[in-house]
């Protein structure tokens, strides 16, 4: 499907030297950002990344960093008003 969001915004970074090629990141990523070649992970589709943080949290070698959060305008506004990090405090399904 042709739904892609803004280009070149994701804070995702991969330290290939640390990567052991376990493919866990590919297992958890909901947008197939990674591909695997020569026993390493590669960020092939960076613009699909939604910065959910799943890959970074589950990587056994701490090879991934990303500024994780929720891609939600209402959360950002709530954060501005309360002076906190964007947080999604809506209780319904439409949030996050």
């Amino acid at each position: 499907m042709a739904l892609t969001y803004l280009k070149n915004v994701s804070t995702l970074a991969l330290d290939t030297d640390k990567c052991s090629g376990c493919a866990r990141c590919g297992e958890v990523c909901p947008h197939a950002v990674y591909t695997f070649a020569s026993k390493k992970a590669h960020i092939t589709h960076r613009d699909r990344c939604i910065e959910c943080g799943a890959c970074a949290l589950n990587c056994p070698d701490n090879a991934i960093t990303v500024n994780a959060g929720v891609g939600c305008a209402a959360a950002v506004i709530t954060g501005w008003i309360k002076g906190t990090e964007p947080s999604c405090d809506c209780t319904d399904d439409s949030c996050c």
Partner: protein
Amino acid sequence: MSEESCCPPQSTCCSLDAAGGSTLRAPGAEAPAVSTSLTFADRFGACRVRLGIGRNNYKLEPGLYRVGSPNDDSPVLVSANYKLTFDTLRKNLQGLDCWLLILDTKGINVWCAAGKGTFGTAELLLRIEQAGLARLVSHRQLVLPQLGAPGVDSNEVARQSGFRVVYGPVRASDIKQFIASGFKASPEMRRVKFTLRDRLVLTPIELGSVLKISLIAFGVLFLINLFAARPFGLFDIALYLGAVLTGAVLTPLLLPLIPGRAFAWKGWLLGLIYTAGALWIIGWLTQESWFTPESWLLAAGYLLLLPACSSYLAMNFTGASTYTSPSGVLKEMRLALPLIIGSAAVGAVLLLIKTFKG
């Protein structure tokens, strides 16, 4: 759980029959059995939730449940205590024997709860411990929903509990196939989608909350009308409601078809087309063009105000979408929000001038 809950954990409306009369005292025998078919009450409740009525109490008791007749070799599936999530899951487990470990996510779905960390490492470790899972099953594997991964550090879980986490498919409908193929998910099963149906289901909640706020605006208009030379009428209300529908419903539905990437832009574009078109049609119906020197204030006011409203509502839909990143949303908002506020403010002033001058 609140006393107002539509669905206390032991009630029949959840089809959770407590396994009380069982003489079997095998480990886990006290875990309530779960029915894999949904009742009318389940479906009726789901509709109410989608419409935003009585949303907050839609949860069930966390802990261990059993589906079919599981033994110490059966898979353990982990999920959230949001009833809609639970219903979707159990409906897809027909014919399987497995354990369900339900985490306390305060009645919030897996994805949102993982983002908040309530579907998280600590809660999972706690429930493994409380359910005595290590004694209940002989294997050391847990199946977690993939969408729970942003909250769960599987390496830490393995270190502390000895249980290895396998992430299951994104959609519950793929679970059976996932288990049948030896706990392997195809790339297709791992992808989050955002279909027309997904988007349609999500629009009523946003619409509901906007309309509540709009009632206040209508109250203010009523007060203004007491002093107005040109009172606001049904046309104005209809015009506004159209802009709300354009931003909160039409834009989400047509999302892939509207050119551009930013949600605010997409909403603004549709809002502009809508407002210009609606003004033209109203002018045609009433036989007086809104683009004449006498009514230019009105036309310009609406052309500035209404697309800004649509744009804002469309931007809010980023929260419901499944493909927006926080960095992207922030970038979009920094650019769009000042424009939206500025445009709406100028538009509102023009409309007020027209209202009091006549």
